[in-house]
């Protein structure tokens, strides 16, 4: 966004030019610094109330992921006396209640944040990198490269995503979170690749690409240094959604016992442990880990919405 020549339609540039053309007082000139595209985007993002709420929610979850296990370490042997068959309900001392053995559900949630958020973020990084490279190559070069890569993407999208993820998790997952991240990442890039390809197809026809080509800039440099920054808006939005999807996916796969080994704590394994307890009436055990997932996902979705509006160059600051 920042590297590109300034777009003459934005207010800030217009204001900046006006400031430069008039013999204005010194302090007046200083106050009219042209804003970069990024600064404009940040200004729009700040004004988007839901986006701010979302960022705060997601930020809190990231903090919980980093510091939660340090402040409230999970000790499976720290057992409270259980007064009801399904575990103790939420109380002032134990705000999320306890599981059926008397262990704190709050500690489970606080410790599960680290793996769940990590899986979301790492999956997103793997999928986004792959998707950008594949989509950019297909969209930039077109022709044979494009059609072969896109047929492959079609194929990946024809098989229901969850089915293939479950097969891979069952047969190749060893219960290791790293393997699970790799499986999720490797399988979730095709949608993004298709998006990047579409963006590159239209960007390819822009004048600045022609100009770059005319002065002899290499193909890869054009694609990744000149075109990619201009396609970043929609990519970032899908990347945020990938984080949310991966967190939910981990929970479901672990819930079916095909995901992370149950001795590692994530929100998914916390839910998996609570299987079959609902009949006893202790709703709090599955409720709070699921609530943690829901709050994180709501936060990410709000943030994605805000970023979409903020990076839309047609929107005004």
């Amino acid at each position, binding site marked *: 966004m920042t590297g590109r020549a300034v777009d003459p339609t934005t207010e800030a540039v217009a204001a900046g030019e006006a400031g430069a053309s008039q013999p204005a007082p010194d302090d007046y000139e200083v106050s009219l610094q042209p804003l970069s595209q990024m600064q404009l985007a940040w200004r729009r993002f700040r004004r988007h109330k839901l986006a701010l709420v979302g960022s705060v929610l997601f930020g809190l979850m990231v903090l919980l992921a980093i510091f939660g296990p340090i402040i409230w370490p999970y000790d499976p042997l720290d057992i409270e006396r259980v007064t009801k068959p399904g575990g103790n309900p939420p109380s002032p001392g134990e705000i999320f209640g306890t599981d059926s053995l008397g262990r704190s559900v709050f500690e489970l949630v606080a410790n599960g944040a680290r793996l769940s958020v990590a899986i979301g973020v790492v999956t997103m990084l793997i999928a986004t990198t792959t998707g950008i490279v594949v989509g950019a190559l297909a969209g930039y070069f077109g022709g044979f490269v494009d059609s072969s890569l896109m047929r492959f993407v079609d194929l990946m999208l*024809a098989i229901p995503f969850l089915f293939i993820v479950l*097969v891979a998790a069952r047969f190749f997952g060893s219960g290791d979170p790293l393997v699970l991240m790799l499986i999720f990442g490797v399988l979730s890039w095709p949608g993004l690749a298709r998006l990047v390809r579409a963006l590159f197809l239209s960007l390819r026809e822009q004048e600045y690409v022609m100009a770059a080509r005319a002065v002899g800039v290499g193909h890869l440099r054009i694609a990744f240094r000149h075109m990619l920054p201009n396609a970043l808006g929609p990519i970032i939005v899908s990347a945020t959604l990938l984080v949310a999807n991966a967190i*939910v996916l981990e929970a479901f796969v672990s819930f079916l016992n095909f995901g992370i080994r149950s001795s590692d704590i994530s929100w998914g394994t916390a839910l998996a442990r609570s299987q079959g307890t609902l009949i006893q009436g202790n709703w709090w055990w599955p409720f709070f880990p699921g609530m943690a997932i*829901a709050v994180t996902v709501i936060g990410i*979705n709000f943030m994605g919405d805000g970023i979409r509006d903020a990076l839309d160059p047609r929107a005004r600051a």
Partner: protein
Amino acid sequence: MLRFIIRRLLGIIPIFLGVIIVSFALMQMAPGGPEAAIQGQQRRLTNEQVDSWLARWCLQREDDLGALALEFGGWAGILNCRNQGSEMLFSEQGGLNFLPAFMGGGDNGLLHGDLGNSTNTGRSVQEMIGERVPGTLMLTITALVTWVSVAVAVGVYAAVRRYSLFDHGMTFFSYVFYSLPTFWLGLMLIFLFGPLLGWLPTGGVVNPRDWPAFGSPQFWSAAGERPLDAFLDIGRHLILPVTTLVAVNIAADSRFVRASMLDALGQDYVRTARAKGLATRVVVGKHAFRNALLPLVTNVALSLPFLFSGAVVTETIFSWPGMGRMFIEALGNRDYFLLMGILLVTSMIILLANLVADVVYGVVDPRIRYD
């Protein structure tokens, strides 16, 4: 239009071939593979039975590329596993094996509609899938109808009463429901309406006290005698799974319908219709509504795969006897033939659904020309 359909059908073929190869490769790469799965049953099977089963599907005990090719040929129905060497290309009838049986071909493998046998139960895969299809279709079709009608009703009403309390409430709830993990929502609904309130059944298709197991011949004959009771009981059992399945889709698509309805309401022809004095009901219901629905067709078609994925989640949680739950069970049992069969059938349904959506889109929007 006909030419378009034929062209699209031809375009599906390479993708479907790819799906076949991917599902086969996935099962082969998996540790153990089908050979190990069947050999794991040896406690119940004699050595001869295992050998004859392996031979039936060209499954070799070696593990090299040649054995893999033979195995694929047998599964696909190109090779006849009863013969040896180059004779494998020919069927008992003497014709090339991949031809249909009435043209002198064989009777085994995918090309002849044979998806193999479950390594767990020994029954034929197409039969097992066939038993579960009614359950899945019942769930997904009810879900589809609910999804589209609720999303359209809510979206249109919110667009017509823009910025009203209803509109804001709907936006809020669609955000919330869009973010809820499906399976967790299902668990919470089970708790709420099951143990807590006791209003609705939380698992199965019919009440096991009143009916034989769903899908069995006894069930169908009993249901034939009391069709209304069966219908009502199934309906009660459908409420929670369908709610779970469609919550996310309704949340996403009601906002989508609202946006496209607002778009349509701002068009010139709507202003013209209002200006010439048509009733609001006609302007909204006829002029704007029909045009606003166009984008929804594509959107629904693109979301169909998610409906199937969602069915896996929902069927597992509500112990619903459908293909999704069978898939999870097959994963647990490493039932390779069954897994490959389910992957193929679901992918085929999705490819065809996309084709139907394209065609429907052409029918409802006369501006679209396919030549």
